[in-house]
């Protein structure tokens, strides 16, 4: 946000925060150790508002739970903004000095009165008003979110709507306050930082910028394609058009994890060439022409990963990899060598095998954000937070301090964004009258390939959580097996009565695709700006099975 893709605050800042808006995040289960820091903040007297369609385990620690209707986050944020403006609680000095586009924004949120916002979102007007006032009046306040915000077809609008609230109140760019997207995988932050984005080089430098690209070309000793590539969703569309015919999948299981999974599997199966590099024989690997077994990155390999607070940390090999499994970069280097290209250069040992520390030093020479992070420092200092531009720099606990500098650090002011409520791509209909949203549970993870390896006593398999009143009106009992259908597919699964789920909503995880292939139901309508599919809002119906099959 504001030019850098990372959470603006550190975990330890939340221990001293006054107000927390936990918005579309069940951090208690999905980010448990971050939640320890958050609990210290609450124990120190912070007030927490939890915005979530479900009454999650996180929301049970909140002062107020705002049970929002799925996909109405922009309306709620705009309603909060309007209330802050009308109550005279904006930080006018900050707006005047550090932002642009305020007047246009003010006009755009004017229609979001408390009454209208309450009607769209299902959140009582009093709760919206209270959250707006308490957030705006706080000294230090943070907004935290995860996939409840970003797995929508208007994901970027959701994020911008939250950023607007921080700009209105000045709750960003100083110790204790901030905007924090909690990252879902141990190196999803690092992947983006390292240029695993179709338009970026490492350190958020632009592939289509001649100066940025030129630096890399000089060090790599080769010309680079200046045209931005495709993100995952566009790749699948290109597969559908027959334009993309080969894919090389590293450490991802799209044959289980994509929305509208039957469609995705058909596309993967139709490729001329599918190469998978993984530590597991995943469903995607089963479709592959070639599988490269990789060593386990965090327990069998040297390297770095980057966390939600932009902290780069070292991984170290503790055990030897099995059989023919090799380090990820070893496999890439060997593949390139067989194609007649040396991608290791000066970063290899005497046999030409890449040395992770040397690759990292090369990266440091090209990415100013990481320049000061030597392996020695990462080891001695327990990791460092970017930006860390030189060896004497202590790293950066929070971002965007420049917003408070007299000359804005030589940058332009941060823009307000005008965003409007759209709602889920798939409206509820008579045929599909219930909302399905998916998410994580504490002891499991993604498609279950890692977490399936241990025997958790608190794992109860997959079930569709449903409000007991909804279930009873369908004549369904707790634990009954039913048929669940969306416009894209049908699965059989058990229902679980869950009073914390509001009427009209259903919920399940996606951790057990072998038991319940839930992504047959999810919607692959996607956000044009981020490429993310709308996993959080499908419409479904529930049908009883013939009596014999339902127990």
């Amino acid at each position, binding site marked *: 946000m504001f030019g850098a893709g990372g959470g603006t605050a550190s975990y330890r800042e939340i221990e001293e925060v006054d107000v927390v808006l936990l918005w579309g995040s069940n951090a208690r289960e999905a980010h448990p150790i971050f939640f320890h820091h958050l609990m210290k903040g609450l124990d120190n007297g912070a007030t927490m508002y939890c915005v979530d369609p479900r009454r999650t385990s996180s929301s049970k620690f909140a002062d107020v739970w705002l049970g929002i209707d799925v996909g109405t986050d922009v309306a709620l944020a705009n309603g909060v903004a309007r209330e802050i403006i009308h109550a005279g609680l904006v930080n006018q000095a900050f707006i005047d000095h550090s932002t642009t586009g305020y007047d246009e924004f003010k006009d755009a949120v004017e229609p979001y009165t408390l009454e209208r916002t309450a009607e769209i979102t299902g959140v009582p007007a009093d709760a919206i008003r209270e959250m707006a006032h308490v957030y705006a009046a706080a000294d230090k306040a943070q907004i935290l979110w995860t996939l409840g915000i970003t797995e929508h077809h208007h994901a970027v609008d959701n994020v911008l709507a939250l950023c607007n609230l921080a700009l209105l109140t000045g709750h960003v760019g100083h110790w204790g306050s901030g905007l924090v997207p909690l*990252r879902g*995988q141990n190196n999803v*932050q690092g992947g983006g930082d390292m240029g695993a984005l179709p338009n970026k080089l490492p350190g958020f430098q632009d592939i289509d910028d001649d100066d940025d690209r030129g630096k890399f070309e000089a060090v790599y000793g080769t010309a680079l394609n200046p045209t931005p590539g495709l993100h995952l969703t566009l790749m699948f569309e290109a597969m559908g058009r027959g334009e993309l015919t080969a894919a090389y999948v590293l450490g991802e299981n799209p044959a289980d994890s994509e929305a509208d999974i039957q469609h995705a599997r058909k596309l993967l199966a139709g490729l001329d060439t599918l190469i998978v590099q993984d530590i597991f024989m995943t469903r995607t690997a089963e479709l592959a022409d070639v599988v490269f077994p990789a060593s386990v990155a965090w327990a069998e390999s040297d390297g770095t990963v980057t*966390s939600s607070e932009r902290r780069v940390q070292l991984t170290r090999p503790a055990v030897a990899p099995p059989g023919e499994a090799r380090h990820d970069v070893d496999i890439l280097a060997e593949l390139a060598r067989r194609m007649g290209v040396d991608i290791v250069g000066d970063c290899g040992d005497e046999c030409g095998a890449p040395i992770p520390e040397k690759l990292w030093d090369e990266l440091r020479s090209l990415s100013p954000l990481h320049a000061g992070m030597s392996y020695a420092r990462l080891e001695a200092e327990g990791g460092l937070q970017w930006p860390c531009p030189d060896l004497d720099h202590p790293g950066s606990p929070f971002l965007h301090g420049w917003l408070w500098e007299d000359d804005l650090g030589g940058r332009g002011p941060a823009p307000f964004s005008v965003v409007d409520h759209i709602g889920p791509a798939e409206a509820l209909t008579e045929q599909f009258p219930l909302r399905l949203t998916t998410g994580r549970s504490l002891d499991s993870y993604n498609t279950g390939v*890692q977490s399936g*390896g241990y*025997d958790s006593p*608190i794992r109860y398999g997959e079930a569709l959580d449903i409000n007991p009143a909804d279930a009873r009106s369908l004549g369904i009992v707790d634990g009954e097996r039913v048929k669940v259908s969306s416009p894209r597919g049908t699965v059989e699964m058990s229902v679980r009565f869950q009073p914390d789920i509001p009427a009209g909503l259903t919920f399940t995880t996606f951790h057990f695709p072998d038991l319940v292939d839930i992504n047959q139901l999810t919607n692959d309508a996607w956000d044009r700006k981020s490429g993310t599919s709308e996993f959080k809002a499908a419409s479904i119906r529930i049908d009883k099975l013939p009596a014999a099959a339902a127990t």
Partner: protein
Amino acid sequence: MTQPNNDKVVPGTTLSEVSVRVDGTDVTVPEGGTVLDACTAHGVDTPTICYAENLTPVNACRVCVVEVEGNRTLVPSCSRPAEDGMVISTDSERVRHSRRMVLEFLGTSTDLSEAPQINEWSKQYGADTSRYVEGGETISEPVKVQDNLYIRDYDKCVLCYKCVDACGEEAQFTFAIAMSGRGMGNRISTEFDVTLPDSACVYCGNCIGVCPTNALQFKTEFDLRQAGEWREDEQTVTRTVCSYCGVGCNLELHVQDNQIVKVTSPADHEVTHGHLCVKGRFGWQYV
């Protein structure tokens, strides 16, 4: 525009210091430091059992006591803040006698066979655990094995409260366990003594992480010990980062014969403070 207060992160900010005398030598510690910090700064090895650097002291075990001039009673060093001008004795006969008694009582009533550090102190202080055996009661009940993640061996429990605090308001805020019973019936217990899978436990294992006597231990460790194959001196410990969510928790992988046998987290790391969740603590078994 008024600048916000970012003092917390100004590099080079130093706290004021306090000056104390430890066994006749002047020592300084940062303000807010404890008598234990002062002893450690002076290079004195102080026995501690209920203390952990990632928990607030509860003053349960009394083994870390020292003499502070002007104080009528012995002082628990782990919790007493250091004050300017304090005169501290760590090795007086009174201190040694008190520590010896504590170690004798604990060693008599509980099984400290898997607590080598405490045994070393017992030797150092001349604790004679046979003194009270005749007629003395010990806890003797079967090891509780209720799942494949960790076991509870109450014979080894010294009732230090660390597990209760780590489960509760010091880290996890789950409150699955508490102290129950009286006298020899005193136990750390789940609600109504239900089995762990039936309790509020979320299997973060932070209780194992702080247990000083191995009363709580990984099932993997328990099984290897039962088979006579637990060889701690052959194990390596490697620091790395957890493979699950994006929080970036530091793990210490304890490896024997190229197999991970248990996982801890460093108490001094600012991300975890030594605490993990069920995935980080137990989710490595696929490796």
